[in-house]
């Protein structure tokens, strides 16, 4: 008797606004026209992906006090695009990031529940929080949240949303013309929530949704972030893309779940991944290097270096050596609107210097070497085998793939790798369920 192989969860991340996304390539299309989203989502659905994912932005990034101009920028409101995609797809899950700090729980719960109805049960929410006053300058309440309160705020907003989603029993709407009863109860949807961050009461307006509640996704990596995911999330986007670190993260997070009364299968761990396909290993490696050079222009190399040095380095030659001085240690980062990238700048700078000396690299080549290398580089056969190996050995339950080109960057994966995963018996050849929770084998709530 052969045991059933674990199925690979596949998610498609519409490329975002950092230098992973190549805009200088002739194949690069619009990052904002709906046609790009339609094409990308329909390609994912053709590949029988579990879901589409779209991140959000709430303030344009700045560096050295000026709007960052080197990367793709400009994006839509996530939930609004997802509702549009519900019209042009039939099975694909539709998920997006919505910030729990700069949105009110009542409004957020209402929009997510509406999306679940409008998509027939395909909605998902990546819960993120932010505490920076920089982003807060675009919102009513400003940057009021202490960094330490981020996860308590996220958890409370999520729990409040769940309370709202549960207010209408699934049989509340009768629409009985003869008896003249539209709802089973007068004024359904009553709720009261009184907590540290949220104090609201009244009536929720959206009937219980097809999934009961949308899929909950989480992306934090810190200890409280992992605990939050183990307790509350249905999927987690991880950054642990190597086999060993993936296994360690997987074991750690899944190991926390029993304490919350949950089974390990109830949380899907999905490392964020990039890929480059070639006819041979050498061909793929050459393509990967070409893409890295597109991603790291001379100007981008200096900007990325500044993020570690925390100092204006615009007088440095991108092909020249690293700065002679050490990074500036200062809480006031020169980059705004993006998460802090380096925990120990002095140690990282020392490593970079050593590598540059050893390989005789200038700034740009060094940056290409040390940042954002692609996860899977190889022939379709080796990439499919590697993905399968990661999943079967519990380094992941699947992957969230981020192509580097909009909107056609997913095509070759769907055309060349998906059929091989299907041959291996680890990816569906057609949808057997209609809801996102159904695709992931999760209970409807």
């Amino acid at each position, binding site marked *: 008797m052969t045991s059933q192989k674990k199925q690979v969860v596949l998610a498609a991340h519409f490329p975002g606004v950092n230098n992973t996304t190549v*805009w*200088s390539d002739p194949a690069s299309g619009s990052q*904002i*026209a*709906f046609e790009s989203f339609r094409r990308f989502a329909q390609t994912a659905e053709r590949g029988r992906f579990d879901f589409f994912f779209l991140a*959000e932005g*709430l*303030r*344009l990034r700045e560096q050295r006090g000026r*709007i960052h*101009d*080197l*990367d*793709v*920028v*400009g*994006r*839509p*409101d996530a939930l*609004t695009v997802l*509702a*549009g995609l*519900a*019209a*042009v797809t039939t099975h694909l899950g539709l998920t997006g990031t919505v910030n729990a700090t*700069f*949105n009110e729980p*009542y*409004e957020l719960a209402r*929009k997510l529940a*509406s*999306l679940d*109805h*409008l998509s027939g049960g395909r909605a998902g929410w990546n819960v993120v929080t932010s505490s920076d006053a920089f982003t807060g*300058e*675009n*919102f*009513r309440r*400003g940057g009021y949240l202490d960094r330490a309160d981020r996860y308590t705020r996220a958890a409370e907003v999520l729990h409040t949303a769940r309370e709202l989603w549960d207010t209408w029993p699934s049989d509340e*709407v009768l*629409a009985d*013309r003869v008896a*003249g009863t*539209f709802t089973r*109860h*007068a*004024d*359904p*949807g009553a709720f009261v929530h009184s907590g540290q961050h*949220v104090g*609201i*009461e*009244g*009536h929720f*307006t*959206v*009937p219980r949704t097809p999934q009961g509640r949308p899929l909950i996704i989480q992306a934090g990596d810190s200890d409280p972030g992992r605990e939050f995911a183990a307790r509350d999330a249905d999927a987690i986007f991880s950054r642990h893309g190597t086999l060993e670190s993936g296994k360690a993260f997987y074991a750690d997070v899944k190991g926390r779940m029993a304490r919350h009364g949950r089974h390990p299968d109830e949380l899907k761990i999905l490392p964020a991944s990039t890929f480059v396909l070639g006819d041979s290993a050498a061909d793929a490696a050459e393509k990967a290097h070409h893409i890295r050079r597109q991603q790291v*222009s001379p*100007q*981008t190399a200096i900007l990325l270096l500044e993020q570690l040095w925390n100092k204006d380095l615009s007088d440095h030659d991108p092909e020249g050596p690293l700065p002679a001085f050490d990074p500036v240690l200062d809480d006031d980062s020169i980059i705004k609107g993006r998460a802090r990238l380096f925990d120990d700048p002095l140690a990282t700078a020392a490593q970079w210097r050593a590598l540059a000396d050893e390989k005789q690299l200038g700034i740009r080549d060094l940056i290409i070497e040390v940042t954002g290398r692609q996860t899977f580089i190889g022939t379709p056969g080796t990439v499919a085998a590697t993905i399968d190996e990661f999943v079967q050995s519990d380094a992941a339950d699947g992957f969230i793939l981020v192509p580097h080109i909009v909107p056609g960057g997913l095509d070759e994966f769907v055309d060349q790798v998906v059929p091989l995963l299907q041959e291996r018996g680890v990816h569906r050849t057609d949808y057997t369920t209609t809801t996102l929770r159904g695709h992931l084998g999760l209970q409807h709530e």
Partner: protein
Amino acid sequence: MSLHLAVALDGAGWHPAAWRDPSARPGELFSPEYWLDLVRIAERGKLDFVTIEDSLGLQSGRYDGLDGRADHVKGRLDALLIAARVAPVTTHIGLVPTVTVTHTEPFHVSTQLATLDYLSTGRAGWRAQVSGRAGEAAHFGHRTFPAFDPATLAEPAVQAFIAELFAEAADHIEVVRRLWDSWEDDAEIRDVATGRFVDRDKLHYIDFTGERFSVKGPSITPRPPQGQPVVTALTHTPLGYRLGVDLLYVTPASAQDAAALVAAARPARVFADVVVFLDPDRKARLDELDGASYTSDAHIYVGDAAGLAELLLSWHDAGVDGFRLRPGVLPADLTAVVEDLVPLLRARGAFRTDYTATTLRGHLGLPAALNRYARTEVTA
């Protein structure tokens, strides 16, 4: 001269017992197919746009709280997301969701409407709505509103409260509009030589500071296809004339009344709201089911399409640019508007036989929206 026609979509129709009409589809009010069907009927009639009603609280027949009834439609989906769901599978009709300004973030509202404009390639509008209901404020938990009803409307404290709500609404609309303009149309340059994707000189901080909120900008979303999606509002008070919208819905009771309201509301475009029952018996039947005679803030028309055409033409002669018809029952009265009223208006040369534009601004004859931040004139 041609008049403009819009329909206002709300649940099963505007009569509180509409959902009990044999033609209604009350079990489908929360399904996307229902809304798509309604919008497609309106598009078949070449109407200018549909509005979609919404609120941040449960429907109630009372202003000062809930009405405790289980025999009326309760519950709604988010109107902007309904419009987004419909946009990619319709082609010409304008989509104008209701979005409340009182408790929402201007930044989100701006990007959401801009996104709807992208989804519909230039057919987005907005019915900006003020909320004074105490129950809705409690859903947000930041402010306590007094419970009041129309009987106390003349009291100075109530008047001051309403004036403050409208002032906040005007600020909200101003911020939304500035954010739409905060990217110049040619800000994206993709200049490989300098490595720059955007020209940051064409992205603008809006630096709005008001009583209730401050917003820095620029938007996260590039300027939408129409530049400025069409901003509309329903008003029963002169406070509405100062909201800074493109189009106002008013509720005249007669042609004479309409003329006076138009004169006061200019320079905005002015549409008159009219509730329509295009079946002589339908309203009476529903009134009986409901146990009360349906009344409205707007004029209620009951009769055949020919009589309605006469009414619309006479109010149009009085200066009204167009009408937002509120169907008593959906889809029946919407279908009658498209199949019976529209042909009569066309026969009089008073309504388009086909769309001549692809954007909502185009349907309404609004000029191209200039960008307040652009330093150079765009030359044709």
